[in-house]
């Protein structure tokens, strides 16, 4: 018994290299030193996929963090972020983590009273909001949020006439950060060193179906450990294309996108718009997707709806192919014994039907 135990622990030692860092900002810094010029983020802008190298991301994250520090965010204080998954959201999150602050992400479709509860409960000091829509929601409840000092928005569209002193353009904050960096060249790196593994990184709120939403504390150690376990059980190729779609308000994206993206690392891709995500999957050749059940269901219903338009012969072929696929999948995922006939038919139905569907969904 003891021998076996030693064996297991030995294998663990060999196969499970320990992570280079104990906090997310430290790991981020190490990855930047390792991969400087390599692409880290990609986002479609003006119809073209723009790349951002580790160095560039580091630059923006640093500027953001320093800008925030200059505005007065202290170690352990909270930054709330509300918007779709875009590069600015990730800059802001890595930025606040580097300051030892806490990130609280909000679902972009949250209502003002839901937001109000979370901002009050998490004692958010600053808020990064994507656009006019998000800003308007906060402005409607600002009287009840005395702690909020600034609202920083990254999409200025529609905000031309807003002159509220509480609002600040993201670019303006980056500029403040650049100036601060010139005066305090070591501030950012020193601040990364101050963050410890048991400091709170993220507060992720439950949906609140049974009573009020509860804030779930995710420390750096916790996020890294989770991501690490995923990385050790699934063999990801480094620099796999990861499509960041589910909101970081959901703890899963904090583990998969924010943290695993640094652990493996991934190339993080942000869809142009939530409604273009399917096209984007194909364009990017995305290799890793994390979807909720609702998104998978919408893929299924989309295929089914398209097949309703097909002729009777094609539809029959599709139905048979899917039937075979489902039977085989049942054995693979649930371990049930199935009739061998399905296995015989599988290669054929894979070629005729299943491959084409996967290809159309960009899941090839």
């Amino acid at each position: 018994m003891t021998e076996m135990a030693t064996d297991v622990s030995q294998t663990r030692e060999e196969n499970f290299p320990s992570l280079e860092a104990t906090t997310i900002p430290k790991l981020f810094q190490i990855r930047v030193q390792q991969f400087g010029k390599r692409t880290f983020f990609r986002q479609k802008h003006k119809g073209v996929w723009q790349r951002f190298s580790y160095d560039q991301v580091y630059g923006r994250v640093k500027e953001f963090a320093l800008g925030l520090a200059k505005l007065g965010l202290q170690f352990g204080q909270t930054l709330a972020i509300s918007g779709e998954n875009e590069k600015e959201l990730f800059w802001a999150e890595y930025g606040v983590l580097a300051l030892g602050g806490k990130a609280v992400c909000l679902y972009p479709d949250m209502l003002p009273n839901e937001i109000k509860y979370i901002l009050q409960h998490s004692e958010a000091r600053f808020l990064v909001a994507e656009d006019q829509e998000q800003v308007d929601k906060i402005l409607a409840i600002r009287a009840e949020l005395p702690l909020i000092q600034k609202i920083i928005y990254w999409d200025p569209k529609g905000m031309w006439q807003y002159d509220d002193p509480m609002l600040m353009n993201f670019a303006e904050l980056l500029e403040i950060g650049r100036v601060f960096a010139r005066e305090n060249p070591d501030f950012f790196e020193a601040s990364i060193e101050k963050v410890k593994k048991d400091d709170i990184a993220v507060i992720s709120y439950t949906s609140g179906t049974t009573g009020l939403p509860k804030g779930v504390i995710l420390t750096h150690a916790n996020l890294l450990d989770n991501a690490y376990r995923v990385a050790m059980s699934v063999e990801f190729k480094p620099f796999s294309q990861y499509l960041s779609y589910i909101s970081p308000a959901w703890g899963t994206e904090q583990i998969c996108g924010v943290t695993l993206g640094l652990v493996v690392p991934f190339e993080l891709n942000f869809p142009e718009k939530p409604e273009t995500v399917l096209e984007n999957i194909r364009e990017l050749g995305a290799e890793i997707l994390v979807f909720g059940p609702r998104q998978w269901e919408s893929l299924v219903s989309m295929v089914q709806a398209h097949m309703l338009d097909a002729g009777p012969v094609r539809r029959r072929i599709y139905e048979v192919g899917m039937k075979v696929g489902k039977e085989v999948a049942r054995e693979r995922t649930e371990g049930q014994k199935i009739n061998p006939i399905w296995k015989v038919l599988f290669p054929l139905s894979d070629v005729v039907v299943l491959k084409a569907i996967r290809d159309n969904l960009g899941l090839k």
Partner: protein
Amino acid sequence: MVESVPDPKMKVDRISLLFKQVMALTEISLAIYDGEIVSIIGPNGAGKSSLLNCLNGFYKPQTGDIYFEDKRITHLSCHKIARMGIGRTFQGIQAFLGMSVLDNILVGRHIHMKTNVFQSFLYWIWSIKEEVHHRDVAEDILDFLEMAPMRDAIVGDIGYGLRKRVDLGRALAMDPRILLMDEPLAGMNVEEKEDMARFILDIKEFRKIPIVIVEHDMEVVMDISDRVIALDWGRVISEGTPDEVRKDSKVINAYLGEAEH
């Protein structure tokens, strides 16, 4: 004390338009100032579209003059007027149905394109640079009109409300210094109307150009206009803020017929 009045962007000085025996417009004068939304309303056949067509040179008034930024444009042809910075959208759909959304908007850039056919054949640096620049501008417009994900969709395949947005995008691509819109809300459902009204207000806020709208939908017109001009039988019968015009008995009569005789 005399308040200084800014120069109007566009000035119409007593124009009259005659179709054979019919007086379409009679001695119309008006001034349009920077950054305002002016709506021209009136019952069918009042001369609204005729007036708009005079402003961008489709029709030539027999008497009177039109000035744009202090230059007399009455007798210029419409492509020259367009080049001066007068953009317009049309009643119904006038976009190229077989082309993509992006290409339709790029068409609006043609007045700003400098390379000629021969240079384009060679596709050398200057034409590449120019293409990138125009694409950049077109993408900004697509983003502004919230159509970026649809850039490659064929206009014939998309809905009516979206086609009207393409039409607007093409006019914006000219970088107009004044925008004329002929019935931008006709045939739209409530949601499409709300979207379009918001875009019109956004254009005013962002580009700070005057916008002249000919429109039937009173509710939206009264909501978004800074000033309303009411026409009937080719004459201006009322002019003022939406509230003033709404209460004007001449306007009520023009729409509902004379109350008493």
